[in-house]
């Protein structure tokens, strides 16, 4: 029977301004987690009752830990950032389906945008660095070295141009025009939409990891839907939490 777990915080450090990396000790979760899945984290904030969905960024099965990387955007993530080593938090997970790793693809690429980058790190590890990684940030890139350490070639774009190329990740992609037979991506919806279009133009399949406001996180409330269609005719509301968060870019209906 599944359950909520108490997970002990082994580390909680600021990577760049307002973005933290937290290492959680939970053998149960680490044992079964997959790249692209997420956790429901119960933050201890007065009056807040819902859990916060946060993606798994790294899995260390042997150590029994999972890592998350989160941006402080509101009360819940603020409270999370103030927790210290040794404290315990309630976590439910792993949730969702994660990426569908296509071993047969020789030229996979990863595209990450901002706080959508973390879940792609575990994916890159599982692809054994055999992947080109395109990352876009407003400013202050994160996890670039971590991707490089795996052996991946990393291209970075920032809006302010302080790091990497000035511009967005689609600019680099169009410029490099890489050979590609599978796209894995996570980031803000406009970026994912652009990727879907780019992939369609190139005739390549793309996986997109979507975000939506959630309540239950396990498929029961139907709060977090994403409009999809397999044959471009019959619309079907899939649940981001249970049927996703990763979808094929060509099943998502991007314009309502």
């Amino acid at each position, binding site marked *: 029977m599944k359950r909520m777990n108490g997970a002990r915080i082994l580390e909680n450090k600021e990577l760049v301004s307002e973005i933290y990396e937290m290492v959680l000790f939970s053998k149960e979760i680490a044992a079964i987690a997959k790249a692209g899945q997420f956790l429901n984290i119960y933050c201890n904030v007065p009056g807040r009752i819902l859990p916060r969905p946060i993606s798994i960024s790294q899995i260390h099965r042997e150590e029994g830990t999972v890592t998350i990387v989160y941006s402080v955007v509101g009360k819940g993530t603020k409270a999370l950032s103030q927790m210290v080593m040794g404290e315990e938090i309630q976590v439910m997970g792993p949730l969702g389906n994660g990426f569908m790793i296509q071993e047969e693809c020789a030229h996979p690429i990863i595209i990450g945008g901002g706080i959508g980058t973390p879940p792609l790190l575990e994916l890159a590890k599982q692809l054994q660095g055999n992947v080109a990684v395109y990352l876009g940030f407003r400013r202050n890139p994160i996890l670039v070295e971590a991707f490089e350490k795996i052996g991946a070639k990393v291209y970075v774009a920032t809006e302010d141009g302080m790091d990497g190329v000035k511009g967005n990740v689609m600019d680099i992609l169009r410029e490099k025009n890489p050979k590609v037979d599978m796209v894995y991506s996570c980031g803000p919806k406009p970026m994912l939409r652009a990727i879907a279009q780019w992939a369609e133009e190139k005739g390549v399949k793309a996986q997109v990891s979507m975000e939506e406001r959630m309540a239950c*996180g*396990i498929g029961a409330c139907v709060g977090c839907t994403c409009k999809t269609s397999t044959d471009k005719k019959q619309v079907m509301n899939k649940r981001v939490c249970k049927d996703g968060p990763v979808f094929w870019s060509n099943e998502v209906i991007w314009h309502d």
Partner: protein
Amino acid sequence: MTRRNMGVHIAGIQLKNPVMTASGTFGSGREYSEFVDLNQLGAVVVKGVANEPWSGNPTPRIAETYGGMLNSVGLQNPGVEAFIKDDIQFLRQYDTKIIVNIAGRTVADYCKVTEKLGDADIDLIELNISCPNVKAGGVNFGTNPAMVEEVTKAVKKVARQPLIVKLTPNVTDIVEIAKAAVAGGADAISLINTLLGMAIDIHGRKPILANVVGGLSGPAIKPVALRMVYQVANAVQVPIIGMGGIATGEDAIAFMLAGATGVAVGTANFMNPRATMEVLEGIEDYMDQYNIEDIHEIIGKL
């Protein structure tokens, strides 16, 4: 301990205990069956089903508020036929009662789904009247006593299972509405559904919900729910299923003291997937603490 009697009757159906799930918060039981043993529940109330599939509202559909949440799911559902095909068999594996919550946009709609459920292996129907009546300019069925009586009467006529009517709290006089439901033939009353609310993203300067307004649920609304259960219990004879913010056994006891025969756990499932079990254990603890052998010694005993 062994002599604790937790069984209650709702509209002639015997439940092994008063704890059930609130419609729309527990899917069709499948998802939470990974966290709790459905055999322990008095009943599972499934999400609202309509005659045809409904696609619901655009996202975002969820907003968090202090001690509560707003939803504007808009009763997305795959339609009653898909429900009958996909979900009943799953639920029947468990030793628990099945209550099907139904939605409609016209009286005829409600009747059609009720008829289709006629031969289905379910125990009770819960009529959700917090839906806009398209034939009456979109006025919510549940806000007008005459409409409440009319739709209840029509559904009761075709229903093969006992009928629970679930009331909306967004009314001036809940007692008048409850009486109308009973006059229409309701075998039991559920209350409350969600309070109409709104949340705003002050940085984006727009409502958080795509639908602008949504239904408020969770601990925040418990005092309103308790008050309505109390008022209605003192005005009608049929059993009441109380809900609205129930998260602990203590909350459930409060509703039962106020007059509820059954208690449903909704939003609390999101706060804690084992909430239904903790509510049940909490009721048992209270009964042990005060040496209560039969749950009926609590119901309405304020």
